[in-house]
């Protein structure tokens, strides 16, 4: 029926075989089923304008006011299946590659992103996000961690302790993410955990976005004195950085996601340590 279901265990995802896009995420273990779309977009970085000379830079996130540009509307799929893990490989563009992994006994999906080098030959600095869009009535509310600890309630365009004048509708609603963020609509929770510090927000109800990579062309005049435009070179050939990381996605009934966020969060932060040795089993056991 135009959809492809993946996942060898109770946690599954459906993708459109036409557009290649994620359609829904469901867990037969918890009975949660949420229609979700996932996409990559980039904000064009401001280099300053007549009203305000402030440019986006290392300290300052200031998009140029235009809506973020979607990297692609449809994406080719490659599905790899097996008894332990199913993988969905997607090339969103020449510089964005993603592998979604669903393991047999896991309550989440593992999404590995590879982003870069971000092209800047059009003269535009770019701040790349991934956006999850779910049909959830979240009433401007989302939750982000506080330095890896308790998740705190955030309300878009609102601060409890002062009268907020919104001048930056996107950047002004961004929060630092060290552990993760989630949405809740009274019925279900959509949670994301990260393996590194990122920025994140919910710019529209039911939507969750995290910023994964930035490459900028202007200095923000806050002291660093350089544009955020690091390169890496092999011999004399230099290119912008490529970032590779993982974020983790889970769905739970409302009020039940904390258990996963706390335990999986610890396991992401403290992974198993692997050490290899060339020995035969017999020699190893003898010693």
């Amino acid at each position, binding site marked *: 029926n135009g959809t492809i279901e993946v996942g060898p265990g109770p946690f599954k995802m459906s993708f459109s075989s036409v557009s290649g896009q994620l359609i829904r995420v469901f867990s037969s273990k918890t009975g949660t089923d949420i229609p979700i779309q996932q996409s990559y977009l980039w904000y064009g970085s401001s280099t300053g304008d007549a009203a305000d000379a402030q440019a986006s830079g290392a300290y300052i996130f200031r998009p140029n006011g235009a809506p973020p540009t979607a990297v692609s509307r449809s994406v080719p799929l490659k599905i790899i299946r097996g008894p332990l893990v199913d993988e969905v490989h997607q090339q969103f563009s020449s510089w964005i590659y993603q592998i979604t992994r669903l393991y047999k006994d896991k309550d989440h999906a593992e999404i590995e992103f590879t982003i870069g080098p971000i092209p800047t030959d059009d003269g535009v600095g770019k701040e790349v996000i991934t956006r999850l869009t779910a049909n959830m009535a979240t009433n401007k509310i989302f939750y982000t961690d506080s330095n890896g600890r308790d998740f705190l309630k955030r309300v878009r365009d609102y601060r409890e302790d002062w009268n907020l004048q919104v001048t930056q509708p996107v950047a002004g609603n961004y929060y630092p993410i060290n552990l993760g963020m989630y949405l809740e609509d009274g019925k279900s929770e959509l949670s994301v955990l990260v393996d590194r510090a990122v920025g994140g927000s919910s710019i529209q109800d039911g939507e969750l976005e995290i910023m994964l990579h930035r490459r900028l062309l202007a200095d923000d005049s806050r002291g660093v004195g350089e544009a955020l435009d690091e390169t*890496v070179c092999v011999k004399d050939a230099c290119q912008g950085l490529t970032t590779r990381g993982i974020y983790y996605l889970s769905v739970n009934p409302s009020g039940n996601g904390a258990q996963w966020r706390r335990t999986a969060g610890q*396991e992401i932060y403290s992974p*198993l340590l692997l050490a*290899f040795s060339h020995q035969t089993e017999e020699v190893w056991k003898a010693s």
Partner: protein
Amino acid sequence: LSTTSLGDAMGLAQHHDAVSGTAKQHTTNDYAKRLSSGSSKAEIVVNLALSCLTSSNKQCASPSTNFTQCNLLNISYCPPTEDESFGESLVLVLYNPLGWARTDFIRIPVNDDQLSVRDSGGNFIESQLVELDNATSNLRKFYVEAYLGISSKEKPKYWLVFQVSVPPLGWNTYFISKGAGADGTGTGSKSHMSTTATPE
């Protein structure tokens, strides 16, 4: 042998410019270099500690086991597992730094599709081979040369995936050896090759 230089590098990296990424490039390079150097030294300490921990000789005066770790596993660079001549058997020791028992999935890059995995009791466990994707091989080729200054040898062909369990604040051993096919041939092997589909 100490972890002091990693501690020092971590200390320097608490500067607000290091935490937020607002240092000048040459300063960022210095933070990275110190962290890398400290991490390499700490790795030697951890390898020695593991060798003592897993040895029946508790005096641990001259550990008999040499361990290596793979810090570029995310781009599929792991010399001990890629080497086709890794001999009769490769020993993998896993340490769990958390206070609860864990099961997890391990992925290591390999060149051989005739491998099987056994647990510490010698029982074959289920494993799956996944073909390495081009994005990872390209990343590996570029960054191994950029970071290590060496031309990467031929890429590994597969990820070998298997499930492990490790006790709280403890360790477990797994053995990876040749001689059993991914098609399930070989006595007791539970190795599987993934199937691939590319919908139009």
